[in-house]
């Protein structure tokens, strides 16, 4: 387990969007210290069983794993407000399939926090049983938090949905990690779910959002690493 705030490089962890300053954590979450707001994107709970339903019997442990990680993060940060940026559930029936132990774990995780469930394409309607409020988007200090990033160049925005991952190549080896992508006005968060894949940030899908120049904060073992887009390579 990672120690609380192991931040050898404060500059790497600090991530600004408009007026808001966050801590980008190696677990893949953003934390705003003043208001104690924790933001997480793309939990994709019950992705394993969603595949199983269609005949591909992936391990049924992804929710368990995702929630164990989420619980560790929440214990560290003890947020006042918890925001999920959409796709918390992999499909509309996920809450019917999720195990009782996992459901309890989720409840334990979030006890005491104000919960805001931004809806996503996988969960356009947040089903009951999660507590809190379901909204299409919320605005905090002029920054919009939504699931799918918009292409408005002037908007301050934090989003998820496209699961960014960055790849570096050195000494004949490649390292590929989930990452935050940001340029000061917009941030796209890494997916948090155990079975959520990653899309390379050099994919054309990112171009309308960030243009050519942006920073990636790649998730390391216990800190994030800040890397310029010019150093990254495609898959």
């Amino acid at each position, binding site marked *: 387990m990672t120690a609380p705030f192991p931040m050898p490089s404060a500059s790497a962890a600090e991530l600004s969007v408009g007026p808001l300053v966050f801590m980008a954590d190696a677990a893949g979450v953003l934390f705003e210290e003043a208001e104690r707001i924790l933001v997480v994107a793309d939990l994709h709970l019950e992705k394993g069983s969603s595949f199983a339903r269609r005949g591909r019997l*992936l*391990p049924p*442990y992804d929710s368990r794993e995702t929630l164990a990680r989420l619980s560790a993060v929440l214990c560290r940060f003890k947020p006042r407000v918890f925001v999920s940026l959409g796709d918390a559930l992999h499909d509309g029936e996920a809450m019917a399939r999720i195990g009782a132990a996992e459901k309890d774990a989720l409840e334990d995780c979030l006890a005491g926090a104000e919960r805001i469930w931004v809806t996503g394409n996988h969960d356009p309607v947040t089903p009951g049983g999660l507590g809190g409020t379901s909204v299409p988007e919320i605005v905090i200090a002029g920054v919009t938090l939504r699931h799918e990033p918009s292409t408005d160049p002037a908007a301050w925005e934090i989003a998820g949905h496209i699961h960014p991952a960055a790849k*570096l190549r050195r000494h004949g*080896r490649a390292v590929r990690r989930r990452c935050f992508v940001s340029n000061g006005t917009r941030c796209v968060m890494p997916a948090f779910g155990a079975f959520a894949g990653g899309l390379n940030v050099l994919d054309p899908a990112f171009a309308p959002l960030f243009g050519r120049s942006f920073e990636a904060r790649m998730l390391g073992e216990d800190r994030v690493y800040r*890397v310029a887009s010019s150093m990254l390579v495609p898959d």
Partner: protein
Amino acid sequence: MTLPEPFAGWFAARGWSPRQHQLALIDKAREGRSVLLVAPTGAGKTLAGFLPTLVDLATRPPAARDAARLHTLYISPLKALAVDVARNLEAPIRDMALPIRVETRTGDTSAHKRARQVGRPPHVLMTTPEQLALLLAHKDATTLFSGLRRVVLDELHALVTSKRGDLLALDLARLHRLAPGLSAVGLSATVREPDDLRRYLVPQTTPDGEATGAMADLVTVTGGARPRIGILEPARRLPLAGHTAMATIPEIYAAIGGHRLTLVFVNTRMQAEFVFQELWRINEDGLAIALHHGSLDAGQRRKVEAAMVAGRLRAVVCTATLDLGIDWGDVDLVVNVGAPKGASRLMQRIGRSNHRLDEPSQALLVPANRFEVMECRAALEAVEEAAQDTPEARKGALDVLSQHVLGMACAGGFRPDDLYAEVTSASPYADLSRPHFDAVVDYVATGGYALRSYERYARLKAGRDGLLRPVNPAVVQRYRMNVGTIVEATMLKVRLGRPPRPGRPAARGGRVLGEVEEYFAETMTPGDTFVFAGEVLRFEALIENEVVVTRAAPGTDPKIPSYAGGKFPLSTFLAARVRAMLADPAAWKRLPAEVSEWLAAQQHRSVLPGPSDLLVETFPRAGRHYLVAYPFEGRLAHQTLGMLLTRRLERMRLRPLGFVCNDYGLAIWGLADLTAAAASGRLSLSDLFSEDMLGDDLEEWLAESALMKRTFRYCAVIAGLIERRFPGKEKTGKQVTISTDLVYDVLRRHQPDHILLEAARQDAATGLLDLGRLAAMLARIRGRIVHKPLDRVSPLSVSVMLEIGRESVYGEAAERILEEAEAELLDEAAA
């Protein structure tokens, strides 16, 4: 025994007489015996395998012949070999006007023809293990195979060493059950343990499940002319490391000039490209020299093969793609560039020349560095003694069994008790325990998860008759799409295109030249030049899974980034011989002067280890401290060892930075003075090399090892957890990698005893991690470590040290790479 007509007449008309073993096989067939035929190349093995079938069919009354449905199955490891053998069989059938129908069935056979082959089968069907698996999973398999008399397994020695051999063993067990009168015939080159193959051919249990240990009969063809093998001694000095054979190119060229058709075998595609390029550089006589390797465009390869058979070529530079039994024309010299890595593989390659039993094969071994001189010498002596180093019999893989279990469900269902009895009658699975079998069936049915949440999504369900069957046709369709045990490395197409200009990116447009492995493409940056398909190409860009290249300006020197030594590690058997040679100065006089002088210098400056010792040298060089060890256990085992040793040194705070290895040894370097640490007792070499590294250290490393993840991916694909492709929706290897890595992490944490993790661990023992060999080595050297502290590099160590910078540095220091990139950004910001 004599041949019946018209066969006797056919032989006589050609001035031939049937060979002893050919007649012996007809006898065996009459007695209904299964048999293993072991014979050197050129002994007429294939004809021996088919004669009994032809005789039996030709001498039956026409009514009985027509009633006979499928009579003989022929299974070959290569599609091309099946087609080639079918063609060779046509001649006697046509000459004698035999009313016998022979057909092939491969991945290329049309759907229409395949359907017809099931409804109205030929007398003889030539196919591959994968196609046989598909036929056996067919709902009409029982009707199709119930009258089968013979199954002929060609190149059996090559098939049984892989997962394809496991698949074929399971299919053979099913055939024996469907056709109780079946006899199996194995055709094999000389092997170390023929009994393993004899057991492979026949059921290992009675129908009641009692173990019998039964073996097929054995027919051995001895004799044949002894091959004439030489080791090339170049005029130029051989380097201490490297695999390019640069120094020997003029001599290879001269040898080609002195023969009709030469096959130049090399160990890797890279070497093939290099040798081809260098031969053409000095090809003043304009000899027709061609190139043949697995990543060239198929059309290009077919052209080379046709030109060979037609006698229009003087030499072909090739890789293992030409290893197996296809007769490619009148080859009179085989050149093996680089060390042969195994004595049996060398024999097989040499057999490509003079494909006739009574003429000696001619071969020339070309060592590329001084260690390889010793290895070539050891291989040559092994061939002279006819010593073999074919690998041990395999333990059947669990992922292959999973695939087979699903296939048998598709074939009309099975009762677990019956299928267990059938599966354990196959020799690779004879020791399979019932709990393991049940775990596999459970995996196939519901995923095999301890958390029993997938019962409602089960793929298999038991009917009222107790038979497990697929729940819907989609399961059957998926099985058919994913059959087979070969999981290819992701390959990228190489396409000619145009270079980028200001304001315009690189673009595709030209033709496809072939394919390269993805990892190779990943090592290049735009502007790099490399040799491919015999040309120097410039890497321009990677566009949507294609490598876009342009032709480099004439005279450009290629920058080939890696000369990997080959995918086969040095065999244990040859390694022992090389160690013995090293330890025995009397044996050095059989080596060229430069090699024996090198060994003498090592003896003088350091020490030469005894045949069972492990020499470890430590010395400083250019501000770094080195530890070089010489286990001689092959590159794969050394890689794993290096990974584990660096972890241990790290834990002892001896600050290792990286390591490299080759087939003979490994070098680790770092910041701490290891000689001083050993002197002060801070570092104990016997502790460092103790067998307990295979416990917790290994477990910890496996958790994050990319090699282990790759091993798991192969198992997951073969076992059908991840589909290779979906109807109408091809999945690229890349997407599979991502998802299986995530699956591996989650499964390892939540159900470490899952059957697929078990399958991956079994593979790791023999595959990419070579754990079995590493364990044997650590046991061998216990108490036999010879430590030699030195003040500088030793002569022997130079060959390993030269790998630094040539091979990519191993060590899975991903965090360090991230740190470096970040530091660069900060530097830029500060500048």
